[in-house]
């Protein structure tokens, strides 16, 4: 017996390798579903662990039995005769039909309770949020607060967010791995879900359903913050941007009045004004095609969560958005260098 164990030692050590690797590679990752930060994601993770350990048990028992059979019943050179021809065993058949049924029944109970728990927000105060998906960006509307923003979501910690989801074009899927699993946004349907952040912090969100060329770059940020910080943010979003001066004022004028020529997906476009597509509160015209930019200067990222919001990146984006985000609906416009600086100054000023 001991001798056998010694022989098995390298095998056992080898089995340890994936375990060690997994532990070594278990650092905090931005989209890890193992670091639930709210009740919905926690319930989903808990359910996963129940089934995972049940599956590990079944895996070890069944594959262990197979490997035992491989070793024990391998053909040997000196076999005297062929094996006995057994055809079946009714008691065994009944046993191995019933046993899995019991395990499955056990895991079905928490499955169904969790389905209903995650379907509706718990009774009490909730914050309503309307998510509208576009190819390839997110529109966030807070109907109770009368504000709309894009690609960056702010929520108060400890409050259940009651979400309704719609799509303007194709099917998308709304996913914040650390806060809640996915729910699809289907054109012609209104779906609902809820989530809640239990701690302050930044969480990554993304589109999980293939939705065309720039699907990989349809992301967003969630800022979970104390109620007072959230309230302050709401006030700042409600405020109309102040007067612009100097370069920023020139940028504002270009944004509203200048028609740029350029190309969109290989087609020529002419006289494109920024304000035709983008809304900035307080301007005489309201665009409805691209993301609302009223407070874009205060956002951390641009291009639907794909790159840091900095003067350099904004400039690169305005020069050739299709290069940063292939397929994007914004045309590549020929904007002179001084015009670029003015536009960037204006956008950065939109705090």
């Amino acid at each position, binding site marked *: 017996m001991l001798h056998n164990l010694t022989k098995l030692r390298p095998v056992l050590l080898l089995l340890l390798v994936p375990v060690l690797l997994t532990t070594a*590679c278990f650092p905090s990752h931005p989209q890890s579903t193992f670091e639930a930060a709210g009740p919905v994601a926690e319930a989903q993770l808990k359910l996963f662990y129940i089934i995972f350990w049940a599956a590990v048990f*079944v895996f070890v028992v069944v594959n262990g039995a197979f490997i035992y*059979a491989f070793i024990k019943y391998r053909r040997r050179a000196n076999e005297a005769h062929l094996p006995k021809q057994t055809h079946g065993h009714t008691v065994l058949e009944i046993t191995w039909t019933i046993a899995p049924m019991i395990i*499955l029944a056990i895991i079905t109970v928490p499955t*169904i309770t*969790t389905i209903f728990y995650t379907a509706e927000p718990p009774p009490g105060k909730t914050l309503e949020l309307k998510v509208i998906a576009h190819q390839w960006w997110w529109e966030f509307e807070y109907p109770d607060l009368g504000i709309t923003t894009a690609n960056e979501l702010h929520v108060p910690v400890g409050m259940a967010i009651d979400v309704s989801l719609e799509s303007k074009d*194709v*099917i998308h899927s709304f996913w914040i791995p650390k806060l809640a699993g996915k729910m699809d946004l289907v*054109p012609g349907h209104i*779906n609902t879900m809820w989530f809640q952040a239990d701690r302050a912090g930044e969480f990554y969100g993304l589109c999980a359903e293939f939705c065309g060329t720039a699907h990989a770059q349809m992301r967003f940020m969630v800022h979970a913050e104390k109620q007072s910080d959230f309230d302050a943010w709401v006030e700042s979003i409600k405020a109309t941007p102040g007067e612009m001066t100097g370069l920023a004022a020139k940028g504002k004028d270009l944004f509203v009045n200048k028609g740029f020529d350029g190309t969109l997906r290989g087609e020529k476009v002419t006289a494109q004004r920024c304000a035709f597509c983008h809304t900035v509160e307080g301007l005489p015209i309201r665009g409805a095609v691209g993301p609302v930019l009223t407070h874009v200067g205060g956002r951390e990222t641009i291009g639907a969560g794909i790159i840091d919001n900095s003067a350099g990146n904004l400039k690169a984006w305005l020069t050739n958005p299709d290069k940063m985000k292939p397929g994007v609906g914004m045309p590549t416009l020929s904007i002179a260098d001084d015009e670029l600086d003015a536009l960037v100054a204006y956008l950065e000023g939109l705090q």
Partner: protein
Amino acid sequence: MAVASGRKYSVLRRPTVATGWWGWFVTVDHKRIGILYGITSVLFFLLGGIEAITLRLQLSNPENALVSPDVFSQLFTMHALTMIFLAIMPLSVAFFNIVIPLQIGARDVAFPRLNALSYWVYLFGGLLLNAGWLVGRAPGSGWFAYSPLTSTAFDVAGGMDFYVLGLLMLGTSSMAGAFNFIVTIINMRAPGMTLMRMPVFTWMTLVTSFLLVTAMPVITVALIELGFDRFVGTNFFNPTMGGDPVLWQHLFWVFGHPEVYILILPAMGIVSEVLPTFSKKPLFGYPFIVLSGVFIGFMGWTVWSHHMFTVGLGPVANATFAVTTVLIAVPTGVKIFNWLGTLWRGSIEFNTAMLFALGFVILFIIGGLSGVTHAAVPADAQQQDTYYIVAHLHYVLFGGSIFGLFAGIYYWFPKVTGRLMNEKLGKLNFWLLFIGMNLTFAPMHWVGLDGMPRRIYTYDSAMGWDFWNLFSTVGSWVILLGVLVFLHNIMRSLRKGEVAGNDPWDGRTLEWSIPSPPPEYNFAEIPTVSGRDAFWSEKYVENEDGIPIPIKKRPSSGGKDTNDIHMPGLSYFPFVTALGMAICFFGVLIHISVIVIGLVVMLFGIYGWAFEPADPEPESGSH
């Protein structure tokens, strides 16, 4: 009849020359059609593999720019379509063709010319599906083709035209083939072979064929509606005009889930042949394996919405489908336990066919268990559309279907060619695929739960997925190496393989009772079957302890005059009809006149087919 001038043939004499390359175009012999299916599906398997290798290369590094996002979408769409419809399904059909008539003691399938038509339509359908590559717009909306991404408004390049037309052709081929095998299995079994004496591979072929004839019409309806939306401007799936994209999802998955069992049941059938042969024991719990296969087939119809847990069908629907889904684990478990029972107290020989069959069992268990974790709807909300699903489906379809089919290739190759495949290369082939598939797909479980979604062509290094993606890519090269060894083994064994003889494995079923390769007529004398394992019971009697004792006198089938065995005649018309159909379908994308030409060719083919005499006319025949 009304055939004028007393001719016994309609338009063309039946071809008489079955040899040379021309013979392949006019053959109706199930074994030769099986070989055509086999070769074609392996070639498509290589194409799908090249697509997979390219996908893995693109993902080997964050923010890689090997291919553009649109090419990437086309690659993952075509990889899935190619592997499912052009590799796994037809490779299974290759085995149906080669093995079923031999296992049931028949001389051919019920409708030999229809069988040839199935193959040619499959070939042309596969070419049509892939023709998009030639014009730079292969289908790129995903193999699941979720509307409205497939509408002309969003699929601007137009690749989904090839999807609609190609899949319609392939569906026709599958339906014709499936009807053929249902009739063959029901009607053409040798005397004494009752249903419950049929080999399990034949049983699983029957179940798969019923799934095909019931599932294919659903996708056909969906494809025709999508085709109308695209070509005519209807609005079945257009939400802005009152259509519903969720309707497409229901239709697609009502087909799509039975399709999963269409892909796995033949492999389960193969494994149920290989395990007993190389354990030297009969299949344990035969009736339970058969009935669990039938039950899986039925249950395949009750679980489609588990592909749609995040669509927003509501908690009641989701809970219902969660329950039906976990129920499928029960018959699957019954199969696995009975396979274990087959090995138990057996005399297990680890040759390549057996290694692949055992690899199937081990890997399929992993895929099955991760499948149970998706059945838990809330957990699935985190898994859906991530690499965790990619891992699961490849454990089931690569570790499952492909390993099962490889077991079948190593098992029946000697029957088809008369030569054994090389065992040394075979084992190398197995271990490279087994290790390579685990290196490639095991890390995807982790990466998926770490938040990596499917179908993204680029990702940020900050996400922490770099290492395991590179790891998977390296794993895919090991798989590639394994496939190259396999190809080398095939080519080498065809020329230099050891001569197999009738019965290299001491087999249990009827195909091993006849020469390898079998003569055109298969059985000189149709055997009479007196039990399960029909051939084994001719070779052995059991003593009072149940130990098989060889019967000294081996039965011989020699001596019978085989010249008067009537075999179906060769025919041009399956090829002509399929060609006409292909021209017609290509015509949809070219010009209406091409459609008309195709229809004329097809009608000519059908007319000639219908009035063809049963036997070739002698040259001196009436005119």
